[in-house]
């Protein structure tokens, strides 16, 4: 369980990035945090893991308040995958990179080997374990970063635009993997994204605009408010757009089968 209360953050004295933010995230949920570029969503991710310190407000992770004294304890529970894989590749090879976090956790060698093999396979990188980072594409480095974060078996994992460099097929694979781990292992997942299509698959959505939480709820309900999406500068993807067009058409909206079929189209992709 994550509890955020009256959080405020600014980089410089005049520029507020997060304004009086309060929300809860339930254990085992998959929550999307949505917002346009510059809405404060990546900053929020860094504040949640204690990489940046908020000027005021409180964050509780499983009832532990995040402070300078508890930050190490909190980081044992929360993992994060950043947007740019180049800034987080620390190993000489893919194998070393996935193992890096596990070694820091002092996990026995045998177990490390097992987990590296397992998670490399789950992200489709099992044939690249001996490769060096410069031999990999951006998307492949993102897969490695995701495997490294998942291998640590943290209670909560934050993905900050972690699929931005993958091709559509890759995004689909990673989405399914996230969903599977969330369902089977009960990890709490937070995905930070501007992609409404991606967020549709999560259980709950928080929409940020200019550092303010402007809406929260189930994606299937929240995304129906086209004006709100426009206000938060989120672009409505084509699948959702047609669904909304049909729902707003006086004649077509009576066709409940059609409305349902367009909705399931958005969910299955």
């Amino acid at each position, binding site marked *: 369980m994550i509890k955020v209360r009256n959080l405020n953050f600014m980089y410089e004295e005049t520029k507020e990035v997060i304004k009086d933010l309060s929300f809860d995230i339930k254990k085992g949920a998959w929550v999307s945090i949505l917002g346009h*570029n510059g809405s404060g969503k990546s900053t929020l991710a860094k504040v949640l893991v204690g990489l940046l310190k908020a000027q005021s407000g409180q964050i509780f992770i499983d009832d532990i308040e995040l402070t300078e004294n508890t930050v190490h304890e909190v980081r044992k529970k929360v993992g994060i995958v950043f947007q740019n894989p180049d800034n987080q590749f620390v190993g000489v090879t893919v194998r070393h990179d996935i193992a890096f976090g596990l070694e820091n956790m002092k996990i026995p060698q045998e177990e490390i080997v097992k987990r590296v093999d397992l998670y490399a396979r789950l992200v489709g990188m099992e044939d690249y374990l001996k490769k060096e980072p410069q031999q990999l594409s951006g998307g492949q480095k993102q897969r490695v970063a995701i495997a490294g974060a998942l291998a640590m078996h943290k209670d909560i994992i934050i993905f900050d635009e972690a699929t931005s460099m993958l091709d559509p097929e890759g995004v689909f694979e990673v989405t399914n993997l996230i969903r599977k781990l969330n369902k089977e292992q009960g990890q709490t997942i937070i995905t930070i994204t501007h992609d409404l299509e991606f967020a549709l698959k999560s259980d709950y959505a928080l929409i940020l605009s200019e550092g303010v939480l402007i809406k929260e709820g189930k994606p299937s309900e929240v995304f129906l408010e086209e004006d709100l999406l426009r206000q938060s500068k989120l672009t409505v993807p084509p*699948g959702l757009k047609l669904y909304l067009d049909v729902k707003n058409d006086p004649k077509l909206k009576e066709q409940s089968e059609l409305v349902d*079929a367009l909705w399931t189209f958005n969910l299955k992709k």
Partner: protein
Amino acid sequence: MDIQFKEVGYAYQGFKKQYHALKNINLEIEKEGEFIAIVGQTGSGKSTLVQHLNALMKPTSGTINILGTVLPSKKKIKVNHLRQKVGLVFQFPEYQLFEENILKDVEFGPSNFKETKDHKTEYAKKSLKLVGIDESLYEESPFRISGGQMRRVAIAGILAMNPNILVLDEPTRGLDPQGKDDIMDLFNEIHVQEHKTIIMITHDMDIVAKYAKRVVVLNQGEIVFDGKKDDLFQHEDFHTFHLDYPTHMRMMNHLHETLGIKKKFVKNQDELLSYLKEVFK
């Protein structure tokens, strides 16, 4: 014909065997008026192909004629001028920004070519205006602006070389939906106003459907389709190309499968909506 590939192949030596990244490529491109999407799975040879367009890579078999320069050449010839005529924007071009301020960064490209170096400031300012970077930002560091703005500055750096042909390797990757639309509208404007040929690698079939006129499909280093986009999406062998359909066509298929609505070729979302209005009259 301004660019012509004749039976072009590109092979490289791996650890034990030879890999053929491109095989028997025949391709003709005009320097004006074309908007070509190059599509295909990861590893199909798209990036290798476009790097041949300005002589960054040279064919290991066959020949390419780029605006009168024939490659490979037996004699040692200069190919530098081709990099000015065919402007190549790499993936994530913002990673290549390096200067202390935005204007200097954009001036760097044109300062390298005799055709453009005397006008570098003029061309840089014109390009920055075109990509929507305000004059007040010229003296800013290119590392103190947003990711979307950084990409615009990087693209301005190529435009400032005043190329005849613009080649883009996944220009929208990593941008948010609004950023994607903005960047594509920018290229479309350049295409419409200056008639420059645009050649673009993309995975996004919605972008292909909206902007491209012609599509070249690569599969394992070979061209398996070269023609109009409408013909591609109605091609009976489409499933063998390992491509997605654009969203509006996938929706049509979904409605056909779930509700039994008769399939009809629609070019975009608006056509699909009017078709549905007709069906449910």
